[in-house]
């Protein structure tokens, strides 16, 4: 969008902040919000009018998000018309240097021109595990993005991709942690129940654990559920009949 010229150092600082912002997210961040932020940062830092994200999922291309409404429409138009540089770039899985819109895309080019867009570039967005997508960059007039602009766009996309990859890892770790915590709670409860039975029937811990297991099995109950009931002071009557 232009704006007043910046000192290099000021732009450098803005780039660094953008990368930091894309890389640091809380554990439960919204992936869609991150991708939208990627389009906003691209518009902020690059000589482009707007940006959008498309992804390729099992050879189907879909629109994900865009920096504004006009760009959402233009990106969806390409999917609907089944033609356009964003699709070509997603299908070939290659970056697309700034490309002027012409008769190669007879249906899409007129729509883009009507919106003032004359060229489009794209860099690949590597998403974890399943998807490969693209960050599409829409321009209204020359000079179009240069080599270093393309490199910056790729860096922003790569940072976003690795943040998304980390999200999966974090989600996996959170599942492991939840299992471990449940196990820990269940273990504590079982120790309490053993003590409770030992106090009630004047038996040792081994005998208490044997009875606990025996009853859980014969009643087809989970050991931890039975233990929790006992730890609340509610010893099932069957326990009193065992010798």
């Amino acid at each position, binding site marked *: 969008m232009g704006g007043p010229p910046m000192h290099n150092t000021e732009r450098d600082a803005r780039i660094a902040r953008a990368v930091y912002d894309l890389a640091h997210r809380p554990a439960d961040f919204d992936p869609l919000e991150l991708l939208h932020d990627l389009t906003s940062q691209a518009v902020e830092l690059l000589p482009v009018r707007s940006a959008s994200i498309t992804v390729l999922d099992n050879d189907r291309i879909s629109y994900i998000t865009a920096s504004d409404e006009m760009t959402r429409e233009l990106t969806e138009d390409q999917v609907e018309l089944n033609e356009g540089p964003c699709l070509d770039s997603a299908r070939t899985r290659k970056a697309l240097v700034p490309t002027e819109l012409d008769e190669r895309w007879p249906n899409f080019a007129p729509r883009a021109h009507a919106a003032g867009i004359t060229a489009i570039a794209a860099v690949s967005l590597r998403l974890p595990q399943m998807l490969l997508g693209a960050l599409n960059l829409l321009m209204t007039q020359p000079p179009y993005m240069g080599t270093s602009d393309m490199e910056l766009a790729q860096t922003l996309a790569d940072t976003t991709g690795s943040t998304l990859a980390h999200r999966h890892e974090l989600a996996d770790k959170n599942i492991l942690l939840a299992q471990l915590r449940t196990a820990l709670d269940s*273990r504590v409860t079982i*120790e309490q129940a053993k003590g409770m039975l030992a106090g009630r029937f004047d038996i040792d811990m081994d005998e208490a654990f044997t009875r606990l297991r025996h009853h859980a099995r014969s009643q087809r109950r989970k050991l931890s559920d039975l233990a929790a009931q006992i730890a609340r002071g509610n010893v099932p009557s069957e326990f009193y009949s065992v010798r």
Partner: protein
Amino acid sequence: MSRDEFTRLLKRLRQAAHDGHDLSTVSAVYAARLLHLQALTLNLRAESGALELLWGTLADGHLGADLEDLQYTLGEGPTLDAARTGEAVTETDLTTQAAAERWPAFTAATHDTSARAVIAIPLLLGVATTGVMTGYRTTTGLFPMEQRLDLETFAHTALHLLLNTPPKALAADTDLEPVPRPDLSLHHAVVHQAAGFLSSRLDIPIADALLRLRAHAFSHNRRLVDVARDVLDQRLDLTPDS
């Protein structure tokens, strides 16, 4: 020399974590030595929010178990603060008035031990505090930046190893006894047993029984695990009017 050794340990542990091994493969005594600490402990936060001591320099004659036992008994101290705030907690001199004001009961109790400085690092997963790694030193003084960074790196790796622990190793939720893991166990198992025991004998809720155990340990200046054992062996009667 020990710098290289520490680097090698970390490399080995990262590989072990990647290969799916758990924390029981790590000698706490060895790790503590390379970190220039005299005691090292790891508490995991249970679903209930309570901290449970699972790993560390816990054998008799080592500081770790006693210092965590004290905090568990007194309900205050650096490990608990780190768990609560999610931030690292350090006290570079446990003999000072400032330390005494911070944790009055805990600091006073440490004077009967050789611990003189403490650093507690929260184990963060994303933004959630999952547990705490705590290191103790028998000398006062700052924790140099390198030592802090090493401990943080080690704590991070230890968390990933801990997450590999098969739940069954802790749970005893099968027909099998918990798989014994030399350096990884529910340290306060005996305390929970004693709480259950007291609860049935005095007909009070478990939580009240645990409070009674803690109060006795505190007022008689005894280790909580020793009080628990005495209760289970019926050498100690905690009936209110006894």
